[in-house]
């Protein structure tokens, strides 16, 4: 029997990006960081005597707090829901099953798109943060090293939430339900954060955004957080791919 040549990961990736082409999601990716920085900078300017710590840290607390606690994870939740929307809506499952695509490629291409959204959002956020600090607020102090941590840890750690949301949106046909769960997850994450339970996905995202510590996290903390994220991504990927296989057959 002739084996069908599989479409491959890159093709899947192309398709996934096409799906999001005219989505209102990109408005959120663009405007949410912009708003955060704009308002956070304003808030810093008005309240800076009340803030403790260095100028850059102070600005980041104003800019990233709400963003990191709620809106960044929620953004990922909405993005994940958008990615499965077409399959659920048009009853595309039959179509998907007959195309020569591997379940693995489907899952990882979607996950990659989510990572892309996370990175773009965060890069934009950090860029505006730096711009705001140097140009608008005219900070004299040099940019602290923690900025690099924000740039890398933010998107990586939020993938814990993103991958869980991707799995939830796969299993749940409703568009809004996983987003509701994400929202509740934000609160649970915050609660866990305050009580030292760091493994919950939203908690990892909060740690990644690092809006409450001025210093860089220690090496052990970094290992903890990265492995935690890795755990969620692997777990959901295994479950997700298995689910897709079952749908295919």
């Amino acid at each position, binding site marked *: 029997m002739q084996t069908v040549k599989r479409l491959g990961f890159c093709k899947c990736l192309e398709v996934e990006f096409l799906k999001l082409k005219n*989505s209102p999601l990109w408005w959120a990716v663009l405007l949410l960081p912009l708003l955060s920085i704009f308002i956070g900078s304003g808030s810093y300017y008005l309240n800076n005597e*009340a803030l403790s710590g260095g100028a850059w840290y102070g600005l980041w607390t104003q800019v990233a707090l709400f963003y990191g606690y*709620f809106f960044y994870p929620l953004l990922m939740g*909405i993005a994940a829901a958008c990615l499965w929307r077409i399959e659920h809506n048009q009853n595309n499952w039959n179509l998907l099953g007959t195309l020569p695509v591997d379940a693995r490629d489907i899952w990882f291409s979607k996950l990659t798109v989510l990572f892309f959204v996370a990175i773009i959002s965060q890069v934009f956020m950090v860029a505006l943060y730096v711009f705001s600090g140097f140009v608008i607020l005219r900070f004299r102090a040099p940019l602290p090293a923690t900025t690099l941590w924000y740039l890398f840890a933010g998107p990586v750690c939020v993938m814990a939430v993103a991958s869980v949301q991707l799995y939830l949106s796969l299993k749940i046909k409703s568009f809004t339900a996983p987003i509701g769960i994400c929202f509740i997850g934000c609160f649970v994450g915050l609660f866990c954060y305050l009580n030292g339970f760091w493994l919950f996905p939203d908690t990892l995202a909060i740690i990644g955004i690092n809006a409450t510590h001025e210093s860089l996290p220690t090496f052990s903390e970094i290992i903890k957080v990265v492995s935690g994220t890795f755990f969620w991504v692997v777990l959901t990927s295994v479950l997700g791919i298995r689910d897709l296989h079952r749908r295919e057959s």
Partner: protein
Amino acid sequence: MNLSKAFNLELYKLKHKYFFLSWLLLTVAPLAYLLYNLRTFSFSPHIHYASVELVYFYEQSEIVWLLALILPVMASLLISKLIDLENKNENWRLLITANEDFKTLWSVKFLTVFFLMELTTLLFYLTAVFRLHQILGAPIPVGKLLLSFIGLSGANVMTLTIAQGLAVFYRNQAVVLIEGLFASFIALISPLMPRWFCYLLPWGYYALNILATNESLGRGSDGIMNWKIIELYPNYVLIFGVALLFIAANVALMRALSKREI
């Protein structure tokens, strides 16, 4: 079709849908967080209250933060569910050709979600106020709290009107959910913004109902910041005025959307 019959119908449509469970979870999670925060209360030496009333008011300001976060997202999530029921499979056609009035449908869906939002607001208020009363034993300043509650209801009207308009106008429910995200963000950061900002955007009206804020007294000898709690006096005339305008806008929006092609 009269309203009570229409409500009955709407409830029937929600069979097997866990709609109210969603509302419950969206309310209980943050409420649990609130209760957890209130499990102990002690007077900090760094925070100065001029009167015991201000303790209630300051707590009210804390719950407004929480409500500002939740309510716009809740509005978008719940109204999206209700409207999407009809957007799917062109069910609007089914209903309109059966002589169900679009205006009745709109009103019923609006009132259902509005009621749930009000219930959430009420639960937050009652939880905070009674917990504090339990701890402090002081009399509850009902009048001012009630007024602020009505003010928040006005903000709820505004938020829900916009969300419902978007949910009906745009088939893609991602639009209303992203709007909810933004609305929540703006509502959340409004207390930090100058007054004119809050008046400008409808979601800023949550912040306008805050009854107390803190003012820094400078750092004490131990290096820790000291705060004084001062009372705020919301401009209820303006708030109610704008809320009434939004009710009119809601009716106008309903009329305009009822004419669209299905």
